[in-house]
Each structure stands twice: as structure tokens, then as C-alpha cells.
């Protein structure tokens, strides 16, 4: 296992070990996450990168206990060293409201369009923290200023539709930070936004990490976004982690063929690339997982053992990967 602790530092905030998430459907069992392990230390930004169906979002939902009804998770999820997998709902709810916050892709659908921003922000604070409304309100305004909403004192009383998408996402981030969580899970936070606004959100997330020391688990498909913000990366494919490590290591020295193929397949703005090297085929259907390495169907370096055995994850916290080929050489 590559979850060896960083030398000399504190224990990980969140440690997921061999997580398996399955969904029972009328068509049979669907394996969304298939033995994923990762950990996040306090104040660290971990990017979980993957395509649709790779299980990256389900991993995050399993952490917060928000899986769909037909989903079950096995394995171990440790929060500050204590097992949280299988905790009763009320304890998970407390964890979600106090320590682990989540921000989703589409801010518009997360806010009630009929209530003022102030109502929605203050609501949670006065309920749990025994604050007066005035105290809560000024705390909310402070937080809105932190996320760079100009004229927050007035704008807090507006309705969601009066803001642009980027501002709403900043408001969502502000709401999630109100209780000073230790971990912020951001699921595709910039996918629905324009590029210029995306950069603002990235800068905001960096600022928050500096100011509050919040650890961030960034779930995304965008390698460019990952390169701009994350300390470490875990690359997921078909429910498994293919490669993980420090961002510099993974980007400058990708070891897994999937990571390499991904980096070759995206056009870059800063280089005159020739023909893009595409990855033939499609990601496997989650309902019919194959044996061996999940990438073997599309891999150009396939050897016999790729089809039969699942490769072990080798390496350290700085850089680890699961591939037969490079394990042998």
C-alpha cells in the first residue's frame, strides 16, 4: 500500500483504504469504486482525476455518506484515525455539517431560488451554533467578503438568480466555509463556469487553503485545473487508482500508460502540438468490469499478465502506480 505517512508530519486527516462502492440495479451489480486507497493530510490539496464513470464522485459521496440508496460501500474510511464507514446517519450528518463540507458542479441547483442568500446562509448558523441572527449575519458578510463578493453587506439580501454563475459558486464556497471545515470536497467546481471565471475560483481555493488551512479534495476531469492548484494527484480509471503522487512527479514523469495517454490526448495552449494522440476505444462499462488491469483493453503496452492479474500498487506517497509493465522493468 502506498499510504505510508509523510515523514515527520501528523497523521492523515482522511484516509481511505481499499474502498469498494457497489450499486444494486435491476440489471445486476455495478461496481463504481473498486478498491481505491488515498489519503489527505491537513491543509493539502488532493486532486482526484478521472473521466465519467471512473468512480471519482462516488468516492467523495462514500466519504460523506451520501451515496444513493442502492449503493453500499466496503473497506475503510478513517477520519482523523476513526472509522466513519458505517456510522449512523445522525453522526455522519454532524460530520458533514461541522468538518467535511462539499461544493458541487452546479451552484444554481444547490440554492433555493425563492429564498434570499442571507436566509440560506444564516439558517444553518443560528441552528447549530446558538448565535444571534445579527452575529450570524455579520459572520456571513465577512465570509462573503473573503470570497471576494464586492458590496457583500447589500448583496447578501439578494436572490440567487441575481448573481452570475461564478459569483454563485463563490457564494457556495462561502457557505461551505462558514463552519470552518477541516476538509472541503469540491466536485467539478468549475466545470459549469467560463474559463476566466474558472481562474478566479482556482485563486479563491488557493487563498482559502492559505487562510484557513482547509484541506481540499478536488474532483475533476480537467488536468489543466489540477496542475494549477493541487499538491498531490490520484488518477482514477474504472473505479481503480492508476497512478498517484505529488503533482510535479505525476505530470513530469507519468509512469502509468493511461496517465501518459491522457496527457498526450489533450491539446495544449502553450505548445504547437501536431496531431493529438487519441486513446482508442471507450472507458469500460461500470456494469461489466473486466479482469486484470481495467485499462488493458485500450493500452498500447499490454502484456499477458495485464489481462489476467490486477497489478499491485507500488511506490511511495510521493509517486505510486499500478502497472505490470513498469513493475517488471
Amino acid at each position: 500500500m502506498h499510504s505510508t505517512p509523510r515523514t515527520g508530519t501528523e497523521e492523515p486527516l482522511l484516509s481511505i483504504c481499499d474502498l469498494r462502492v457497489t450499486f444494486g440495479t435491476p440489471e445486476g451489480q455495478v461496481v463504481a469504486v473498486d478498491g481505491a486507497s488515498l489519503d489527505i493530510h491537513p491543509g493539502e490539496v488532493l486532486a482526484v482525476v478521472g473521466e465519467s464513470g471512473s468512480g471519482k464522485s462516488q468516492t467523495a459521496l462514500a466519504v460523506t455518506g451520501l451515496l444513493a440508496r442502492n449503493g453500499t460501500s466496503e473497506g475503510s474510511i478513517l477520519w482523523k484515525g476513526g472509522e466513519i464507514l458505517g456510522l449512523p446517519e445522525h453522526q455522519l450528518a454532524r460530520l458533514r455539517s461541522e468538518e467535511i463540507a462539499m461544493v458541487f458542479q452546479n451552484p444554481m441547483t444547490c440554492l433555493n431560488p425563492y429564498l434570499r442568500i442571507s436566509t440560506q446562509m444564516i439558517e444553518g448558523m443560528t441552528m447549530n451554533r446558538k448565535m444571534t441572527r445579527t452575529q450570524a449575519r455579520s459572520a456571513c458578510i465577512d465570509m462573503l467578503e473573503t470570497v471576494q463578493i464586492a458590496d457583500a453587506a447589500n448583496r447578501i439580501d439578494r436572490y440567487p438568480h441575481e448573481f452570475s454563475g461564478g459569483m454563485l459558486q463563490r457564494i457556495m464556497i462561502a457557505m461551505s466555509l462558514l463552519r470552518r471545515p477541516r476538509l472541503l470536497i469540491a466536485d467539478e467546481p468549475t466545470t459549469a463556469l467560463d474559463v476566466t471565471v474558472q481562474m478566479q475560483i482556482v485563486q479563491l481555493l488557493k487563498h482559502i487553503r492559505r487562510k484557513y488551512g482547509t484541506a481540499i479534495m478536488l474532483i475533476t476531469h480537467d488536468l489543466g485545473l489540477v496542475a494549477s492548484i493541487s499538491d498531490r494527484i490520484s488518477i482514477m480509471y474504472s473505479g481503480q487508482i492508476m497512478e498517484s503522487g505529488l503533482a510535479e512527479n505525476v505530470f513530469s514523469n507519468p509512469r502509468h500508460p493511461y496517465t501518459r495517454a491522457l496527457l498526450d490526448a489533450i491539446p495544449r495552449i502553450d505548445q504547437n502540438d501536431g496531431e493529438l494522440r487519441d486513446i482508442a476505444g471507450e472507458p469500460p462499462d461500470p456494469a461489466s468490469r473486466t479482469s486484470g488491469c481495467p485499462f488493458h483493453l485500450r493500452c498500447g503496452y499490454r502484456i499477458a499478465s495485464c489481462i489476467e492479474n490486477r497489478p499491485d500498487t507500488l511506490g511511495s506517497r510521493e509517486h505510486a502506480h499500478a502497472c505490470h509493465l513498469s513493475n517488471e522493468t
Partner: protein
Amino acid sequence: MLLQIENVTVEFSLPGSPARGRHSKNRLTALAGVSFALAERETLGIVGESGSGKTTLARAIVGMVPVQEGRIVWMGSDLSSTNQDSRRRIRKDMTMIFQNPLASLNPRMTIGQIIAEPCQIHEPGVSKTEIRRRVAETMEWVGLAPALANRYPHEFSGGQCQRIGIARALIARPRLIICDEPVAALDVSIRAQIVNLLKQLQDEFGISMIMISHDLSVIRHVSHRIMVMYLGHVMEVIPSRHLLQKSCHPYTRTLIESVPVPDPKIQKTRELPVIKSDPPLMNTPASGCRFATRCPIARDSCSDSQTALLEVESGHWLACPYCELPPEFESGN
């Protein structure tokens, strides 16, 4: 010239308020006097953020949005003055690929029927066997096994659905294909497949293309020229090989700087764009340059009058009088 767009303006009246006067507040200007020309075998990339009017422009060209002012000239004939019949004939030559692969295919038809439809509409005399042959040929071309012709769209993945959409666009051998965000809804590993397919399409059949996207790196990769739009106005038009070195409109530069590079070492050293606030709402009337409110080099005079789009070098058009031209440019390189 295959297609000429001359000073096209498109306005929508906002819902809830029946707008009477032309200059009523409740009208939203989606396109404000856009002009460009497209040559045979050329790919023009149109890039812009939401609200830039890029999709409206595509829809205006194919005639799905009425044009208030200006002309759209297709191979010498003004589209606004053509009758229904010749308009239909033009539709054979001008087709479109949509953003959402699955939603653009009728769920009740087999993909064979879907791909064959343009043939049936435009060449009613062609026999069934000939159509079947052409469908098979086209499917093979886009990388789909012809034996799948009896399948239904929901049985395919997003990337394959986009191939079906491309086959449908291709079968009647059009002269122009307009692609509206063709890869935005696809997974990263599938995007490159579709981008490469579109490039091959162009190389092999010499089809002109208008490629619309918010993703500047994709646009730069596939197109010959790039047109940058902001809130219904053209900011800059530039050959894509010059984009990085010679583009100088502050908005174009902001876009370039905002696209993250998948390399943490470069990302760390890159200069982050200085951009103020969010894009203004589209219906707020603004005089002058629409980008002035967010522009890092804006002067007082910027908000007075709209700057004209001027050709500063062959093929390079610019709507900003104040931006500094890159040194290579001034030396006449």
C-alpha cells in the same frame, strides 16, 4: 468566398415584457454587427464565453434565428431573400453538429435511419439500396461498424453518438459544417478521437468548417483562423498559428492566460490574468467597448464609443486601439 456575414445583428425580446420599440430596454442584443468571410476549405474557430453570441451566430447562419440587420451571403446569394425552396437546397450544402451527442439523435429512430435522413430529404430519387450503401460507407468512414445500423442511439456511448452525428452531417456531402461545441460534452480520452476525426474530415473532403467552442486550446488545434467574441461583438480575428505570439486584444490575452496548462511547473510561473469582476449582464446597455468594464488597460475613452474592427495586418483584425502590438509584429515579421 463560400460564406459572407455582413454586419449581422440579432436581437431577442426578453420574456415577460412585450417589447415594442426597437431600442426598448427589454431587448437583448445577442449579436451586434458581426462580419466575417469564410473561404472554401477553411476552418474558422469562434471562441468566446457564455453570452458571447457564438451559438446565436451559428443558429443565424443556418436560419434558425431571424436576423434583424445585415446580410448572410451564401456563395453569392443573399440568404434573407431566398425562397423556401432554394433555402432547402442550401441546407444540403450547410449542416451542423451539435453539442449534446445523444440529445441530437431522435431516440425512436435507428441510427441507420438517422444517418440516411439528409439523403432522403435532398435526393428523393435515390433507391433504398443506394442509400443503404451510402450509410454503410459513411458509417465506416467515421469509425462505426455498418452492422450497427439497426441499433438505437441509447445503445451507444457519447463519443459514438457524436460519430453518428458526424456521419449524418457528412452523408449529403455538404460544403460547410458548423460544429457547435462538438467535444464539450465528451470525456477527455474521447475528445481527441473526435477532434482528430473532424480534422481528417476536412483534409479528405475539403469541407469548410465553423468550429464553435469555449475551449481555446481545442479551437487553436483545429482551425485556420480564430475569431474571438465577447458579448455579441468581435474582438479580434487572427490566424491560429499567430494566436500565441501576435494576438494583442486584452480579452484574447486574458483568455489565453486563463487556459490552464497541464504542467504544474509552468502553471506556477505563469502570470495569472488580471481581470476584474464577472461579465456584465447582457441586457445592461453599454456604450463603447463591451470589454471596457473588465479590461486591464481600459481608458476613459473606451466607454465612449465602440471601437471599429480594423485590419492591422493581413488576416489579423483587431477591435482595440490601445493594446500594445507585440514587438515581432512591429518589426514587420
